[in-house]
Structure formats: C-alpha cells, structure tokens
C-alpha cells in the first residue's frame, strides 16, 4: 500500500495556495482580520449592552460608530457581535459538513438499499424550503445558540450529503478501493484511510461554503427575532436596528457597519474557496498552463476559448 501524502505536507500545499493565488490571499487576509477582531477586540470594551449615551447619536469622537436606539455603543456591539457570530458560523459550518459526510459517504459506499433510503431522505430535505422550516423549528425550541445551531444543521446538511455521495460513488469504483476490499480491510478503514484522503480538498471547500451559509442564515434568523435577543450578535444588532425603526429616522450607522461585516466575511470565504478551486481543479490548472504557453509564443490569450483537454 503506497503512502499517501501526510497531512503535514497537505497543510503546506494549502499554505502555498494562499501565498500564490491572489483571490485566496485576499480572502484569507479578510478572514484573518475578522478572526483577530473576534478574538482580541472585545477585551477593549466592557459591556456592549451598557447605556453609554443619548440614543441614535451619529458617529462622533466619543462613539466612533454612533449609538443605537437604546443608547448603546454601536462599535462595541459590532465587535462583540463579531466574536459570537463567527464562533457560531464556524462551528455550524463544520457540523453541517460532518453530518453531510456521515450520511453521504455511507450512502455512496454501501450503495443498494442503504443508498436508496438515504438519498431519498436528503433529496426530500433539499426540496423543502430551508428558511420557513428553520423558522418553524426555531419557534418551538427555547431560544439560544444551541437551538440556532441545531436548526441550521437540520436545514443545511443535505446539500453536502448529496455532493459527497456522488464523490464516494466515483471513488468506490476505483482500483485501489477494490484492492483494499480484496485485501480484507474493514469498511471503516477503507473509508477513513482510502476514500477520505482523496476528498480532503472537497471537504475543505464544503466547510468554507457551509460557513458562509451558516453565517448568512444565522443573521437572517436572528434578524427575525428567533435568536436570543439579549445576546449581542450581528443578527440581533440588525434586529434591534429594524425594531427601533432606526431606518425611518435615518440612523444608517446602526445597520450599515454590521451588514458590511457580514458581507466582507462572506466575500472573503468565497474568494478563499475560488482560490483553492483554481489550485486543486486540474481543468483550471490546465487553462493556466495553456495561457502561459500562449503568452510565451507571443499570442494573446485574451480571445482564446479555453477547452478541457483530456489528452494533455
């Protein structure tokens, strides 16, 4: 059995991707900044819910981003919200892929009746609209981060399961898996040692994508008042901005910064994913090689239509 690249060298390869690809670099940069803000910046603020001034004051030197409809500091709420929202986002992103992988790989690996039943289940979950389902479930459970996480996992796992099932199905037919089966290795070992390592880049892409989903959906649900409205998160900040009718008084500072943060994190994660995709997707890599080749020959690649060349 040949040794696969160790996880250490794979981490190095990803680091190399981030260093070389512009999109990945931008995405990683944005992400690192927000993680640092989430980890360290809340220490600079004592209590984000403290009433520190007159409600709905525009940005000033005392309150850099103004005050909310209740007289809290917007900047403090934004920074503390970053920590909570990112923590829930990453945790849910990871969990969603974990559940999806468990179901998807089981379905793809065992096939037959197991596959038929599991596929049916995730296909049903895929067509039931997520947001209304999430709202109905969340309304029945006690509010809090645990409920929010559960709801997001329930409504989000199906897509990952579907993709991973297809991928497992393809790997299952490959020779090295057949060899492992003949060698009498256990199913668990074949899945964890033979199949999973071929999917690491896909799994990473899924975790990133699911985190984008988790942050967006979480903010949406909290905006509806389905989160714990006494904790400070991005979603509850927007909920209060809407509820205090800040908009109709023209208090843009109560909702603009939060929305920008949500979008920036989402954009950063998406860019990171594109970067990884370009480095790990052989077709896109080919296109890059081909372009370089054309430039070397002195032909402008601008008008050239790239084609997947199987024979190269």
């Amino acid at each position, binding site marked *: 059995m040949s040794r696969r690249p160790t996880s250490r060298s794979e981490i190095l390869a990803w680091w190399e991707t981030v260093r070389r690809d512009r999109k990945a670099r931008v995405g990683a940069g944005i992400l690192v900044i927000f993680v640092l803000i989430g980890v360290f910046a809340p220490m600079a603020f004592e209590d984000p819910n403290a009433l520190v001034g007159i409600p709905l004051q525009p940005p000033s030197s005392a309150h850099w981003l103004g005050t909310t409809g209740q007289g809290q500091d917007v900047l403090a709420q934004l920074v503390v919200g970053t920590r909570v929202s990112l923590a829930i986002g990453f945790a849910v992103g990871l969990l969603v892929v974990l559940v999806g992988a468990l179901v998807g790989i089981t379905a793809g690996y065992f096939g037959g009746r197991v596959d038929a039943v599991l596929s049916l289940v995730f296909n049903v979950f895929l067509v*039931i*609209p997520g947001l*209304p*389902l999430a709202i109905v479930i969340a*309304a029945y459970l006690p509010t809090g981060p645990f409920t929010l996480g559960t709801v997001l996992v329930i409504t989000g796992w199906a897509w990952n399961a579907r993709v991973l099932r297809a991928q497992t199905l393809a790997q299952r037919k490959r020779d090295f898996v057949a060899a492992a089966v003949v060698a009498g290795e256990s199913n668990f070992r074949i899945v964890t040692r033979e199949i999973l390592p071929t999917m690491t880049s896909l799994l990473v892409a899924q975790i990133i994508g699911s985190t984008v989903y988790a942050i967006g959906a979480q903010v949406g649900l909290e905006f*509806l008042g389905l989160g714990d409205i006494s904790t400070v998160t991005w979603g509850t900040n927007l909920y209060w901005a809407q509820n205090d009718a800040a908009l109709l008084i023209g208090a843009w500072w109560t909702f603009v910064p939060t929305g920008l943060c949500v979008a920036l994190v989402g954009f950063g994660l998406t860019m990171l994913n594109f970067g990884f995709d370009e480095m790990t997707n052989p077709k896109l890599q080919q296109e890059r090689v081909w372009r370089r080749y054309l430039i070397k020959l002195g032909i402008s690649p*601008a008008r050239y239509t790239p084609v997947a060349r199987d024979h190269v």
Partner: protein
Amino acid sequence: LKYIARRLGFYLLAGWSALTLNFFLPRLMPGDPASALFGRFRGQLSPEALDALHETFGLTDSGLVGQYFTYLGHALKGEFGISIAYFPTPVFDVIGKGLIWTIYLAGTALAISFVLGSLLGVAAAWWRRGWVDNWLPPVFIFLGAFPYFWLAMLALYFFGFTLGWFPLGHAYGDDLTPSFSFVFLSDIVRHSALPIGTVVIVTLGGWLLTMRNTMIAVLGSNYFGLALGKGLSPTRVVFRYAARNALLPSITGFGMALGFVLGGSLLTEIVFSYPGQGYLLVQAVQNQDYPLMQGIFLVITLAVLCANFLVDLVYLWLDPRTRDSEE
C-alpha cells in the same frame, strides 16, 4: 412518462414528509407540548379559541395514530385552524390574502434575475475577457455576499428615505382601492420596484456564473463549430445551439434556487412591510401564533414542490435524453 410518474411520486413523498414533520414538531417541544403551549394563552384567549387550538394540533383524547389521521384529514381540506394573531380569522384565509403578493414578488424577481443573469452569462462567455466578463462576475459575487434583507434596508434608506423616489413600504398606497385601473397597477409596480430590485441584484450573480461557465464549455464543442462553419448566423447559433444546451445546468439549479430565493424574498418583505407571507410569518413569530406559522410553512413548501415539478417538466422538454433514459 415513467420519468414524470417518478418525479411526481417523489414530490408527493416530500409533501407528505413536510406534513408529517409539521405534525410532530409541536409534540417534540421540550416538556409537555400541550400545557406549555396553552399555558401561555390561558387568560388571554377565550375557551372557544383554546378549543380551536386543540383542534388545530389534533390534540384530542384519541391516541397518537388517531390524532395523526385527524390532522392529515384537516390539512388536506386546507383547515389549518384559527390564527391567534388575527383571531378569529381562519389561518387559511389569512394566508390566502398574503399569498398573491409573495408569488408576485418572488416570481417576478426570480424571472427577471434568471433571464437577465443568463443573458449576461451568454454575453460574458461570447466576449470572453471583455468588460462584461471582467467586471460583472466579481461585482455580483460581492453583492451576493450581502444578506438580502440588509441590502433591502440599505435600498429603503437610500432610495426611499433619503431620495424619496420610492414609497417606504406596503404593496400599494393607503388612498387607493384595489382595482384593475392604470393608476392602481402602476402604484403596485412602484411599491414593488425596490423589493424586487434587491432580490434580483443578490441572485443575479449565480445565474450569470453558471451560464457563463457552461457556455464556455459549449462554445468549445464540435457541434458548435460545425454550426458556425455551415455559415449560420452567429445570433442563431449562440441562442438556438449553444444557449439551449448551456441552459440545462441552470434549469437544474432553478429548483434548488427556488426555495432560496423565496426565503430571501420573505426577509425582504419584512423590511418593506410588504403584505406577503414573510410579513405574516414575522407577525406569527412575534405573537407566537403557531397555527399560522405552520400553515405558512406548509403552503410555502407545497408551492415550492409544485414549482419544482414544473421545472422538471421544462427540463424534459429541453433535454430529449431524459425522455427515454431510465436514469
């Protein structure tokens, strides 16, 4: 035909799953669902209303199986009980009033964004590395990262509040009565311009990218080269030969996007106090109106399932391969 029957069977199963889920949700609530739910309303609601609530959830004295079948019977007849927030209007009527607005809003937004996005995708693929291809994808990826409802708030603040170009909410002006007059219809368009616009902007990028990427693959194919080589006009070749084939992945994505767009448009409705399902849903959440909430969930789910089935039929028409293949 076999394909149609199988899809239909699948959607029936999905619909039944949603119904069953809806039945078990109140019963999965921590503690005793009945007392937890009704305890909150005791003193607020008349005994008749409480009876109506019991009726809605099928929380009668019969066993769980009996309750389940009673519930299914009610649901199939469209009886979702009495709304608490709009007491004593039946849930069915409350939803019916809002449904037309949601279908109008989400349907128009979806149609505009799909057609416009796909056309731009064709343009981006045709003039590859031209300005459409260079500028639009990154811009729309960035816009797509914003939460729908936040862009809606921004649009409302900027175009509604600051510039005063558009009304600040509702589906039509208070001074108008619904009729098929020009004044009324144009007022509806004016009120819906901002909500539709924000949904279109957020969703456009997805269609653009899907279409662009598949178009590029199709443009490199042999049959496309042949069609051009035969001397057919480029417009005809691009739309009849290339775009029709490149559209298939977008159509597949359409069913999936439907639920997503609907979710986003529900949130947008809330920002604009647009009287559709989203607005009702918030009313239901705030008043803990469980019958209304569950009714809305069911109606939206059924609508999405029907739309998905229609998409499957369109796919069948576009791709002859599905007609005779067994897969």
